[in-house]
């Protein structure tokens, strides 16, 4: 469902603050007061999603099954939480388990990359007639201050073009779509051209503002609003361009993050979160290991493990971890059955996600798979439950609605609910 502002009411211009505080009256403001009570009284909350693209193996990460036919060659190692074991491929992360929680009973019933990714980003299954907003867009809507110079949903990608992806926001409107940060490089043209001084730049801005206001008087849509907002945000972002420069970090810290792409991108994530970003997604590619699953998981998790542990520590040391929801997810897990090419295939039936930080119990484990990892035997959950959990961890009532054109749209799948056992 698109956000067209067909009714042309002023409600659509309501800000996050108005949304939370009820200043806007109708529309989105209908959700305001209950959230405001909790949302505004706490310090800024942030979200970091580490997306292990392609589908990381739960057996090689959070739910190892050593010594059984499906277990593969890796052993389980103890963690900083007595009784919790994870794969030997994650020794650094294991030492941070006391800050993390595991959900081991996920069954999304989906083995397709695109559909699985959609479930994990939106908490819903794809429907022909409806589009649902990504978690990043929802967090951008709920958590990002209007005057925040950083886009509310930053998506650091390993490659591709930097772009704004309004579709991610669905009915919330294009201004809450993701902004891709390709290969961790700052968006283009953040430097003011040398020939234009500050005074001239301000005059140009005022002229543009006047023109926009005249245009708005006659027609206004979510798209035009997003256009203007993007322009304003770009101006503010120019002042914050230094955030994208990871070379200003100490060499020692950069070494700990790792000189590889994922290391650089995670260091940038921390800088952005510390600099006021609301939602940062960083991807690590790739885990779609139909062939040589074990060799490739050594290689990929070797990069992930130390970098991720460093990122957790860095956030913790800076006092950011308890107010940052950290989620490590994929589009699905991988089959317990080891195929003829030493690979594991797509598997949405029984897999795991790790999370920690804001609102999450430290060292908790919920859900259980059977001895060979082929089925969930305790506390089965799906993408909807996870989505509810993220929102509740951030202090929101995930059972509430968004309102678009006065039509209530549940923030999260009404058929699911938060995983209370893992929440503070």
């Amino acid at each position, binding site marked *: 469902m698109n956000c067209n502002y067909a009714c042309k009411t002023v409600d659509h211009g309501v800000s996050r603050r108005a949304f939370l505080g009820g200043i806007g009256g109708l529309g989105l403001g209908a959700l305001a007061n209950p959230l405001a009570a909790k949302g505004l009284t706490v310090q800024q909350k942030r979200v970091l999603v580490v997306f292990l693209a*392609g589908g990381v193996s739960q057996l090689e990460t959070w739910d190892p099954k050593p010594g059984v036919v499906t277990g593969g060659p890796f052993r389980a190692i103890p963690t900083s939480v007595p009784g919790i074991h994870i794969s030997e491929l994650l020794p650094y992360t294991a030492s941070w388990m006391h800050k993390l929680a595991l959900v081991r009973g996920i069954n999304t019933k989906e083995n397709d990359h695109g559909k699985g990714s959609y479930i994990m980003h939106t908490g819903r299954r794809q429907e022909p007639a409806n589009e649902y907003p990504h978690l990043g867009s929802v967090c951008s809507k709920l958590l990002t201050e209007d005057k925040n110079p950083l886009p509310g949903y930053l998506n650091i990608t390993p490659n591709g073009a930097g772009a704004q992806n309004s579709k991610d926001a669905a009915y919330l409107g294009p201004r809450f779509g993701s902004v891709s940060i390709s290969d961790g490089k700052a968006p283009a043209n953040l430097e003011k051209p040398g020939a234009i001084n500050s005074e001239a730049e301000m005059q140009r801005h005022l002229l543009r503002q006047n023109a926009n206001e005249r245009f708005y008087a006659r027609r206004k849509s979510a798209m035009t609003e997003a256009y203007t907002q993007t322009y304003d945000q770009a101006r503010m972002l120019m002042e914050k361009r230094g955030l994208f420069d990871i070379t200003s970090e100490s060499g020692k810290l950069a070494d700990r993050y790792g000189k590889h792409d994922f290391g650089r991108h995670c260091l940038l994530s921390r800088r952005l979160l510390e600099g006021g970003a609301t939602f940062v997604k960083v991807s690590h590619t*790739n885990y779609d290991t139909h062939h040589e699953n074990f060799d*490739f998981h050594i*290689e990929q998790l070797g990069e992930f493990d130390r970098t991720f542990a460093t990122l957790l520590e860095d956030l913790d040391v800076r006092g950011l971890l308890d107010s940052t929801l950290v989620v490590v997810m994929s589009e699905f897990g991988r089959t317990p059955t*080891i195929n003829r090419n030493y690979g594991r295939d797509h598997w949405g039936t029984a897999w795991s996600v790790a999370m920690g930080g804001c609102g999450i119990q430290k060292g908790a484990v919920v859900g259980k798979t059977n001895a060979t990892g082929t089925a969930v035997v305790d506390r089965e959950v799906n993408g909807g439950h996870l989505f509810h959990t993220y929102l509740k961890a951030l202090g929101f009532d995930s059972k509430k609605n968004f309102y678009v054109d006065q039509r209530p749209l549940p923030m999260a799948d009404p058929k699911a609910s938060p995983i209370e056992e893992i929440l503070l």
Partner: protein
Amino acid sequence: MQNDKDAKKEAPKTPEVVKPSPPPVFPGLDPAAARQAKEFKHTTALLACRYEPAGKFLFTSGQDNTLQRWEIETAKKTDMAGHSSWVRAMVFAPKEKLLFSGGYDGQIISWNYESAEPIPLRQVLAHQGWIRALSVDPAGQKLVSCGNDGRIAIWSIPELKPVHSWQAHENHVYQVGFHPSGKEIVSVDLKGMVRIWDLTGKKIREIEAKALHKYDSGFGADIGGARSMAFSTDGTVLALAGITNVTNAFAGVGNPIILLVDWATGKITKELTSKEKFQGTMWGVAWHPAGFVAGTAGGNGGMLWFWKPDQANEFAAIKLADNARDISIAPNGKAIAIPSYGGFARIFDITPNLNPPKETPPKVPPAKK
């Protein structure tokens, strides 16, 4: 007067006749007639196999972390537990009657392989990370191992005491072996870097086997390395097996290959591939004492090929029932063992087939009424 050059120009052209090369002859052997003679079934997929030096037993390893000893004549199986991960490296010290196994748990275990119930005699944590290969020197006094820690280590036989070790590669080491002279050690890593060392760990030279490596930028990962390695009997040629032409690392889209390296010059002299393109990895290579090379692959099914070392394409190809994962030639040279994904260890007889299956006459369709 015509000079020689003009004479060559005007010489009548004769059509070039390409004669099919005659099938190679190996006395007492006929690899092209390879046929399954025995089949042993384990409960899980198998990873590797080795004939013991007397040829009485075949040892295999499975995805359940155990080794299996099969008495070839009777098919009697004895399970051998000791590792806590998969095992792909097995090698014998015949004088000491010892089998050494190297596992992905980083351990080397010595076994009394002829005993009624082989048990771990000695056990050492040799590497941080997987051990993929072991080799015993021709004198049977030293064992060499390699690991994912990039190190090579030499151990005494039978004590398994460390003799010497060194950081040999920046990447996971996939193969290590003594040269038949016993004076040099060769190692190969994930990126196809071949390094030759003296026994003190001093690097003598290195060779890049680029065909055995690719960085797949789409997936952000390296694929490659020598998955198997074998010297010719006289030590003049080294064969390295793996995957090449990789277009999709994570789906295993590539072709099996064996590279032949001239030991004296360090040059890659031949790339052995199959006539019909096959998608998969060459998991096993062996030099037969009669002078031919045997290779087994797994991917879209399993294959066994035989090559003459001077010809790029095979002289015989045998389709296997399922993915092959290793190869071992019987000490008498008359059979080849191949372990498979399906859990089978299959023994192929490569002697001339004196009782070939009779060709069944083509069926004649019944005449229409």
